């Protein structure tokens, strides 16, 4: 490494140092978002530390280089984009759809451009005249053109970019009119980027539109599907690098039917029939809990969280899921856990010696900063800091189930803060996003993108755990980290 490991510093002192760089007003605001996992209050079970002392889901401070995105990214990029047999229009200027084009790695099968459209960029490409005179007519024509050129498309969503909500367009009226015209599902989504404080409101709005324009109307019209006793939905798995598939294979092996996956590799039909299932299994709690609560309230469909990162959580989740079904399923779950145990043992035997004791810092979206923690623990690694771009209070509460007392916690971290935290703590690995990757690596610290799996994956399930372990090993133990110092400039 190019730099020596500095003297230990307490997390509290580190936070104080970082805040001292801010103007007073901003320091006061940011102080509420930085903290240290505290001891779990006596008598509180289920958590090993208390992390919900930091404030979250609050507006980012201007000018500090927040890593967050916007509501459009949460709706088009996360929730709607992966639904493969629908066309998702980036409604407004060209940029939003361009930068998000094919970047989330939501894998799918299908014939792209004919019956599947995930890796496309459809846009109304707003020009000045559309801003001045409104874009509803252009939107109508856009929908007609999509329907003509892509006759197998099952439905269309309108993903609003910033100007739509500012110029007074009536996309709901357009959606209703065009639905009547072409007879296909059309969904207007008010996910303008200025709404809310992060991607999170975009998830919520996207969920609400799924409810109002797909789920409820479909149930009212009647869904042609007879549910079975073992039917479940995977909710909140976007099939990044194939995650939903390496999860599905386990659920099927224990005897469940995955009748729908929201929304990785999903079709509109899978979404429509979701309420027919017996249980909703939610992976990404942050982005899709809203629709689970709705299906529970309106259709009496129970839901439960699960975690398919790392063998400890996978086994615990399989047992918890199976416990909602009969003995057959429970027996199969045990058989599946036993079947994969040799793989788990072999992966650990191979990679633990190279990874044990390594210190990791995470900064990701709304779920993974806690959900992947046990997968690292399974490999003998330690989490020294974690934080979320767009988590809410309940996420920080749940974080206490995973991280130990003394862990540095940072909400909506700024570029400055993260750089200082990394520089000071000098972890062996940082897991975050593309914007953080290269700055971290320049400091001589190995890095993995934990949004996109750094173009690898899947990481879910037992098959994914082997890939996860391999990737952490190749990141940390690559020889390049030993080449940073020119030999004639070796520090004394």
């Amino acid at each position, binding site marked *: 490494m190019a730099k020596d490991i500095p003297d230990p510093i307490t997390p509290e002192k580190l936070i104080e140092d970082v805040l001292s760089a801010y103007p007073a007003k*901003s320091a006061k605001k940011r102080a509420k978002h930085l903290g240290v996992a505290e001891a779990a209050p006596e008598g509180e079970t289920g958590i090993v530390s208390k992390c919900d002392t930091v404030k979250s889901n609050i507006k980012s401070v*201007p000018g500090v280089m927040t890593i967050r995105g916007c509501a459009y990214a949460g709706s088009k990029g996360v929730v709607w984009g992966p639904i493969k047999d629908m066309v998702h229009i980036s409604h407004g200027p*060209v940029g939003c759809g361009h930068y998000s084009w094919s970047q989330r790695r939501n894998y799918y099968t299908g014939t792209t*451009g004919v019956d599947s459209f995930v890796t496309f960029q459809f846009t109304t490409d707003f020009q000045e005249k559309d801003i001045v005179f409104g874009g509803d007519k252009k939107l109508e024509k856009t929908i007609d053109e999509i329907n003509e050129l892509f006759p197998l498309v099952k439905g269309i969503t309108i993903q609003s970019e*910033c100007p739509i909500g*500012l110029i007074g367009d009536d996309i709901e009226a357009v959606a209703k009119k065009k639905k009547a015209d072409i007879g296909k599902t059309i969904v207007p989504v008010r996910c303008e980027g200025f709404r809310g404080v992060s991607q999170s409101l975009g998830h919520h709005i996207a969920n609400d539109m799924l409810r109002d324009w797909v789920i409820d109307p479909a149930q009212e019209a009647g869904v042609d599907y007879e549910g079975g006793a073992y039917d479940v939905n995977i909710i909140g798995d976007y099939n990044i690098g194939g995650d939903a598939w390496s999860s599905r294979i386990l659920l099927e092996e224990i005897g469940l039917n995955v009748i*729908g996956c929201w929304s990785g590799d999903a079709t509109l039909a899978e979404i429509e029939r979701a309420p027919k299932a017996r249980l909703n299994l939610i992976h990404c709690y942050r982005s899709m809990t809203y629709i689970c609560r709705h299906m529970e309230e309106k259709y009496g469909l129970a839901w439960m969280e699960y975690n398919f990162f790392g063998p400890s959580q996978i086994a615990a989740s399989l047992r918890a899921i199976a416990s909602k079904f009969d003995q057959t399923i429970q027996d199969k779950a045990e058989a599946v856990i036993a079947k994969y145990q040799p793989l788990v043992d072999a992966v650990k035997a191979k990679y633990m010696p190279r990874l044990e004791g390594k210190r990791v810092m995470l900064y990701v979206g709304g779920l993974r900063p806690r959900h992947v923690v046990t997968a690292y623990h399974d490999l003998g690694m330690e989490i020294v800091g974690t934080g979320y771009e767009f988590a809410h209070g309940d996420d920080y509460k749940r974080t206490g189930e995973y991280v130990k007392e003394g862990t540095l916690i940072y909400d909506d971290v700024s570029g400055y803060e993260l750089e200082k935290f990394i520089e000071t703590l000098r972890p062996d690995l940082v897991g975050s996003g593309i914007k953080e990757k290269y700055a971290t690596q320049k400091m001589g610290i190995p890095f993995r993108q934990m949004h996109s799996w750094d173009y690898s994956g899947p990481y879910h399930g037992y098959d994914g755990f*082997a890939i996860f372990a391999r990737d952490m090993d190749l990141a940390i133990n690559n020889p390049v980290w030993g080449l940073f110092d020119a030999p004639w400039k070796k520090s004394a």
Partner: protein
Amino acid sequence: MPQSADNVLDHAKLFHEPEYKAMLDNKRATFECGHPSNMVTEIGDWTKSWDYREKNLAREALTINPAKACQPLGAVFAAAGYEGTMSFVHGSQGCVAYYRSHLARHFKEPSSAVSSSMTEDAAVFGGLTNMVEGLANTYALYNPKMIAVSTTCMAEVIGDDLNSFIIKAKEKESVPEDFPVPFAHTPAFVGSHVDGYDNMQKGILTPFWKDAERAPGDGINIIPGFDGYAVGNIRELKRMLGLMGVQATVLSDVSDVYDTPSDGEFRMYSGGTTQDEIKDALNAKATISMQEYCSRKTLAFCEEKGQETSAFHYPMGVQGTDELLMKLSELTGKEIPEALRLERGRLVDAMADSQAYLHGKTYAIYGDPDFVYSMARFVMETGGEPKHCLATNGGKDWAEKMQALLASSPFGQGCQVWAGKDLWHLRSILATEPADMLIGNSYGKYLERDLGLPLIRLTFPIFDRHHHHRFPTWGYQGALNVLVKLLDTVFDKLDSDSGTLGETDISFDLTR
């Protein structure tokens, strides 16, 4: 069970294992409610027909897979080329996350920029508070020498006035009174990233030049333009200038900031044009743009100030480089040195050695207007024939320039020019009127897959191949790099077409 610790299979192999194939087949058959496969095939074939092409080209409202980004991306890129400069984009914050990601994915480098993080309340009351608070934070945290302000479309739609906002922010002591905060309005609903680049260049020069007295000198300014190969190209440009003994100022030099070393230190800023250089640049005899469509407003501003101007279209290839060097020689009185004549000769030598493999090859070329121009020109110098030239962000005047260029060579006679069209248009066009090769960026891989013609990645963005941007495409040396890429594609195709043992390998030749 397909997975093992000895041979870990990731997505590239895992999902082609029998267990997963069976699972996915079952998913499709049981749960997806898709269309029958014969219908998918039928519609797929139809999308490659003349009938579909006509409908596709008749689109009026819908844009599909456009080869252009929005203005602020260009503004952020331009600002990054000035020493110690932080981009501050006024408006919604998600946009900035997108620009930073986009640039980082291409350059494999950090890309720093901040946002004023405007939300609903700013949409109602305007973003002045965000600007005041934001500039103070950026100044305190990131120690910039300059903050360059541009806008997202949100700020443009609500009509925030950057000039008055920055004045007010300075009154409120967000930054010192004399601290440079140049700005440019960069509405995403006008033009594209090349216009954002132009607007920001002019925006940065303006405060340094507007009240200064020009003392005309002999200096030369060079504006590189928006360029994914900027790292290699700007360095190559400087090398050529050095050989000529020409002192020139590159206005926005991103070559260091998008190519910082790994030695233990993260450099948020690196290199770049200094403020003294910007000030001196007013006195230059002339300003030359490497890319006309990235600099029309900036060049007009230079002319207003009394400078000569000259614009090129991405100087690539023999004649493109010849013209640049001769212009530099004319402006400075310096002779083009023998070393460059020899480099030229070596390039021509390489082209002559390989001409048999390139003569008559046909190409579809897309990208930014200046790139497409020079790429078509170089292709024609090799005896190749451009068949389709497309720029989503090219206008009528670009199309006319392209027509004139193509008319100047017998190799350009069969070429069609597509201004304002997108890559889904290009799919129809190539399905009905094919070419041997496609030149563009990473997005072209979908056309490569759908239509089977090889893609040569030569322009921004390149996400799925690494480090190409570190090598120049400008100048004679750059042309050599481009030549090799064209040739490798031709040779790889010959090998893959003759690569099956005992079946197609008659022409699997060792020497070519």
